[in-house]
């Protein structure tokens, strides 16, 4: 069952020019939410911003949930103006948890603000697998949450497109050499559409679990708004069948 909670913000912090990290106290949702799932945030009591905005859970700590988001439009602009103590009306957990593996070589691959949902996942996967994390961004100010990942105790490699930190290039380019040294690797990826598209050829040889995005109406499976085409024909409902999907099963 989906839970609705009004939780106060316990911390809001700017991570980059337009990227914010928010911790919300939401005891009932935080108890249940798993890596890969997301919450729906009501932006405004008023009628001008009607639909909830979906955000992946970036981390959980006791009764608190963390999300990390980029300002891209009116909803996220409004949310970015929140202050400590403001109440957010959220629903969750939404979506299916990411499928978890055990005793495997795992590569976590995140681009831009797409690294957000991978932190909680890394924390969980790290307990039972060999995990390597690749984080990429356009430039150093956009490279977020690096110390959070390092604190988990996993190996973290960085890439930037301008070469200002880590290896110069795209995070997907850094993936091939890492995979070539592994036996039966599993990849979890989240990032901009172009990045996920670049992983499609790889998904035919290696298991790639990708976090996808699509415009959502309800986030709960009732409106059929969040369609993603399946290779086998028809569509899946990203909010119910995803948002983490096996990349070889969808058409991007």
């Amino acid at each position, binding site marked *: *069952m989906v839970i609705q909670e009004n939780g106060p913000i316990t911390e809001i912090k700017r991570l980059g020019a337009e990227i914010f990290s928010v911790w919300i106290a939401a005891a009932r949702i935080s108890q249940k939410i798993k890596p890969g799932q997301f919450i729906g945030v009501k932006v405004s009591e008023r009628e001008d911003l*009607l*639909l909830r905005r979906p955000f992946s859970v970036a981390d959980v700590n006791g009764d608190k949930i963390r999300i990390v988001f980029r300002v891209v439009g009116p909803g996220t602009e409004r949310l970015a103006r929140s202050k400590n103590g403001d109440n957010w009306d959220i629903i969750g957990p939404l979506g299916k948890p990411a499928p978890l593996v055990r005793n495997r070589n795992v590569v976590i691959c995140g681009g831009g603000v797409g690294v957000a949902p991978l932190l909680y996942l890394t924390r969980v996967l790290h307990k039972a697998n060999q995990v390597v994390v690749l984080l990429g961004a356009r430039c150093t100010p956009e490279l977020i949450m690096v110390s959070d990942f390092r604190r988990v105790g996993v190996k973290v490699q960085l890439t930037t497109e301008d070469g200002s930190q880590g290896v110069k290039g795209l995070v997907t380019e850094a993936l091939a050499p890492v995979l070539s040294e592994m036996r039966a690797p599993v990849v979890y990826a989240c990032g901009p559409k172009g990045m996920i598209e670049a992983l499609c050829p790889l998904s035919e040889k290696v298991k790639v679990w990708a976090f996808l995005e699509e415009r959502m109406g309800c986030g709960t*499976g*009732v409106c059929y708004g*969040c*369609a993603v085409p399946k290779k086998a024909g028809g569509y899946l409902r990203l909010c119910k069948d995803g948002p983490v999907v096996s990349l070889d099963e969808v058409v991007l």
Partner: protein
Amino acid sequence: MKFEVLIRDVKFPNPVLAASGTFGFGLEFLTVANRLGGVVTKGLTVKPRAGNPPPRIVETPSGVVNSVGLENPGVAMFKTDILPRLQRLKCPVLVNLAAGSLDEFCELTEILEETPVAGLELNLSCPNVKEGGVAFGQKPQRVAEVTRAVRKRTDKLLVVKLTANFVDPAETAKAAEAAGADAVSLINTLFALVLDQNGRPFLGGRTGGLSGPAIKPFALFCVERVVKAVKIPVIGMGGIRTGQDAFEFISAGAHLVQVGTANLTRPDGAVEVMKGLRRLARIRGWQNWDDVRGKAGEGCFG
């Protein structure tokens, strides 16, 4: 007060229903569904339909534009998979039927006649499909023809869902009434086009249907107009989000209301509307719906 509403032989425990397409097949949130006056299921067609390509939904000021395109598993799957589970619902279920031809409407009706659903809502108003849909609903003659053909094949409660797109719904409502409809419902979404920064259509289906608070004043106008034109009960919808909104539709003469887009904002959106209505009933001391229904012209309720 007694919240129950009776239309023909169907007893709705309260006047607030979940609108088609915004509450799935009523199975996702059983505890919510069981507190409603009724559930109208997602549009059902004879054959399974994949629906329109994404993106299918986008927010506009105080509204939502969708081009889902009637994605559904088809009536055979509905009967074997969904219907047995629907029987767990305590409230009446109306099945929203969509079709590209008169024959298809008849076929759907015949298949559902033997099932325990309480009623049928003929969707003669969907703007998101190429054939059938709104094209049927724009001509009184076509509305009468389809209604008459379906009426012949069913004893169930028959609701005809009208469009307000480029047509006077008072005319199509009269046609539906004359052809044997037990009730009419309105409005479906309004024609809409959303363009992106580059001036290209945003939705995968190119155009879509506008719903939500943005359409409420127009929907209310249409409902009042239809209430004055026909004797059969009218089911009103369009932008209902609060008990006050529902009250306004009932004062305009609606027997029942449906809540659509508000279910997207929260799964219990329709229950919230009902709670608001109950609160109003208590504060204003209504004894029964006749105290309220159709009294809009009389002004103050104090």
